[in-house]
């Protein structure tokens, strides 16, 4: 492990996050990280599924209201993710973590491109084009991979 990570791990904040018996340390951070996952992926999946043709009664022009929720979940997880990294920097050097970051970058890129395709659509416009559907399908799969790599981190180091 690089020296900078070793000193991070030895810092009092890192030690507190990792070892404190307080419920506000590791357990709270981990719970919030799970809540953020649910909000980000849950909201994104509902939009993906709508684009793919499920729940057609929801107008495409309105489903865009789910995007602020996705960003809320994303930032909650960016912050709690940094805290989890500080608590256990060794996990942050694993290959599975690199995969996880790369997959999340893909997920966010798909989120942004989906938002661009859907914004400004009239409320009545119902049928999504094939290219939008491809983005939605990709997004569904990418978040499954993000969850899988995230879960896998519990079993390394």
């Amino acid at each position: 492990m690089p020296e900078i990570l070793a000193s991070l791990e030895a810092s009092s904040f890192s030690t507190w996050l990792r070892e404190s018996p307080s419920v506000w340390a590791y357990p709270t951070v981990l719970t919030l990280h799970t809540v953020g996952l649910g909000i980000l992926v849950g909201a994104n999946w509902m939009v993906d599924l709508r684009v793919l043709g499920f729940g057609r009664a929801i107008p495409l022009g309105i489903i865009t209201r789910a995007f602020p929720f996705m960003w809320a979940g994303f930032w909650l997880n960016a912050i709690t993710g940094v805290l989890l990294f500080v608590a256990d920097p060794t996990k942050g050097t694993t290959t599975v973590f690199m995969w996880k970051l790369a997959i999340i970058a893909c997920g966010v890129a798909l989120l942004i491109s989906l938002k661009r395709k859907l914004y400004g659509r009239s409320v009545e416009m119902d049928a999504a084009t094939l290219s939008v559907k491809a983005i939605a399908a990709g997004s569904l799969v990418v978040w499954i991979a993000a969850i899988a790599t995230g879960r896998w981190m519990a079993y390394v180091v």
Partner: protein
Amino acid sequence: MSESIVLFLKSTAISQAMSSSRLLWPLCETLHFIGLALLVGGAGLMDLRLMGFLKSIPVAAVMQMRKWAVLGVLINVITGSLFFIGAPAQYINNPAWYGKLLFLAVAMINIAVFETTQGKRVLALAAGENTPVSFKVAGAVSMGSWFLVLYFGRMLPFTGNAF
């Protein structure tokens, strides 16, 4: 009594598969979190609309996404049962597990009561229409109890010996 249940469950083939396979447990955990996201997405959408947010969406339209929340619950009840059968001792003495089961029951009873008493009324709410107080309460109870199910689930490793 609980000890004999633990011993019996551990003697089953499912339990032995769950604890001997290196892949099965992480795979079920992944499925459990996929189910969690489906539930948060599907139920969250409904709960927010019932609570009076996202009024531009007709309630009947939101209800079309409910099947994904049901799928999420189904996946999680199955994978959750596999965890319990796989390592019953981790849960049976764990206070967080009872908290999780309690609020799972609260969420289910809330849905059952709301469905039987308001099921028809809810579908009649059009886009832009506000919801009555009873709907707001049902939505808030649902969101609150699902959050507590998640919270106690996450606490399992910290209040006992589960992972």
